[in-house]
């Protein structure tokens, strides 16, 4: 199945019953799939909105009403949605936002890229909030992480970003799906705007004019973010046990890096791969645990160096961090990354 379609089916099976979006390449196959899939369901709503702003605000409304809601776009469209995402973070509303990244800045191009790492992991919009960011690297992981995104969004009441790229969206791989979740069986949300008959009213707002109340709210969000940092990091270790050099990469880049690691292993070089699955929270402790045994780390990204800053923050002076990146929608081959690894092994006499 095509990656974009996999996300649509996984969202449906996770109990998502509201989607609003506005077309943009390379993610159009996702709304295409959902428009057909939701038409088969009695309780689901699909809307092609008049703009990205309209779409994110419709998702906000659906979320307030308690339904599992999703929107999707690609880089420039995600920028347009940032106001709504900030409002949802402030109002503590769950939603899933899919970003199928393309080359930038500006309109950029439509080729696969990882140039929105900073935007995704630092909140993206105004107001100092965070969103959980999940980075799938295979068809099967598109299933598990899409479904997990809805659970995390509801559990912590915040927007969760599924950060893919054009390659993840277009590639086809065989996948298996778990049984669909019946939305009626999901935990009840006691904060939704669902009619106040027989109870007091609920207020959902991000406007808090009194600075002391705003500060209290910010501290509350900070405690939530700390809890997420504590509990929700996820990563994959690949051939790291005997490695003398670790490549750190996420998403599509990690897939290419795995191919590179396999190549250099055949040539006798002991390289491994550390792959963050959650980009925020970043798996800092798990990465730091590789050092000081590992003295050299090569970060590979399809941008000019963004996650590399989180890698450096994680390990401090414990190891030397090297970077290799290609921006603009260029897809490196495994051979290219294998060359970069080999050069480092020669330069630092790693064997």
């Amino acid at each position, binding site marked *: 199945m095509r990656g974009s379609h996999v996300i649509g089916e996984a969202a449906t099976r996770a109990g998502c019953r509201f989607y609003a979006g506005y077309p943009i390449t390379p993610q159009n196959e996702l709304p295409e799939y959902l428009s057909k899939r939701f038409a088969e369901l009695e309780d689901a709503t699909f809307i092609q909105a008049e703009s990205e702003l309209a779409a994110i605000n419709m998702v906000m409304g659906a979320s307030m009403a308690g339904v599992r809601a999703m929107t999707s776009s690609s880089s420039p469209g995600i920028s347009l949605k940032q106001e709504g995402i900030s409002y949802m973070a402030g109002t503590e509303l769950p939603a899933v936002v899919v970003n199928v990244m393309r080359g930038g800045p500006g309109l950029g191009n439509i080729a696969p890229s990882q140039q929105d790492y900073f935007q995704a992991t630092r909140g993206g919009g105004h107001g100092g909030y965070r969103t959980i960011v999940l980075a799938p690297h295979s068809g099967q992981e598109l299933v598990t992480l899409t479904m997990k995104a809805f659970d995390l969004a509801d559990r912590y009441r915040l927007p969760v970003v599924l950060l893919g790229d054009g390659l993840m969206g277009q590639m086809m791989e065989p996948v298996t799906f778990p049984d669909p979740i019946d939305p009626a069986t999901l935990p009840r949300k006691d904060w939704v705007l669902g009619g106040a008959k027989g109870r007091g009213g609920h207020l959902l707002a991000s406007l808090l004019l009194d600075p002391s109340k705003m500060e209290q709210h910010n501290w509350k969000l900070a405690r939530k973010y700390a809890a997420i940092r504590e509990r929700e990091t996820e990563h994959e270790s690949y051939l790291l046990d005997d490695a003398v050099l670790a490549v750190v990469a996420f998403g599509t880049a990690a897939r290419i890096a*795995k191919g590179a690691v396999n190549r250099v292993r055949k040539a006798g070089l002991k390289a491994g791969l550390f792959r963050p699955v959650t980009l925020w929270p970043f798996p800092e402790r798990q990465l730091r645990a590789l050092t000081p045994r590992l003295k050299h780390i090569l970060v590979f990204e399809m941008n000019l160096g963004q996650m590399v800053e989180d890698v450096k923050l994680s390990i401090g002076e414990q190891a030397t961090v090297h970077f290799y990146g290609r921006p603009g929608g260029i897809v490196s081959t495994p051979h290219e990354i294998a060359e970069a690894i080999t050069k480092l092994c020669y330069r630092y006499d790693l064997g």
Partner: protein
Amino acid sequence: MGMTKTIFSGFGGQGVLMMGYVLASSGMHEDKHVTYLPSYGAEVRGGTANCTITVSDEPIASPVASFPDFAVLMNTPSLVRFEGKVKAGGTIFLNDDLVELKPKRLDIAVLRVPVNTIADRLGHARGANMVMIGAFVQKTGLVSLKSVIKSVKEIFATKGAKVHKMNTLALKEGAAFVRAGGESEL
């Protein structure tokens, strides 16, 4: 068999992405690991189109090919673009009806298949890609012709019995061309 990567390339409309999809689906039916990685966007809407297919006995690390084992090239620009990327010892499959250039490399095998001529003779001009994929699996043995026929039937299930019959014929003709010796140069 290990891991094999194939690039299919040609004009939009030649059924290049379909050939890749058929190969990937057939591999899946044989319980192999497969990935299908298409070019997309502006390219799909005119001009050249290509896709990379990996078929493997083991989980596939990278769906991106550094040096493909096989390249199926349906027009001249595709030959120019991909000849240099094919692994030494690999094979290029050329559409003999459209590609006039002769490959320059001496370390790869070349199989020329007149796919348009064969498809026209069958009265199934749109099945030129089916002729090629028939020839491709006969030569490479990546998947069985039986799996390919089954996949094609599934993919075109809504098109009816006549299309299925013609596609099957085109697939078999492609395979027969290779079995008969084909026109192979090294």
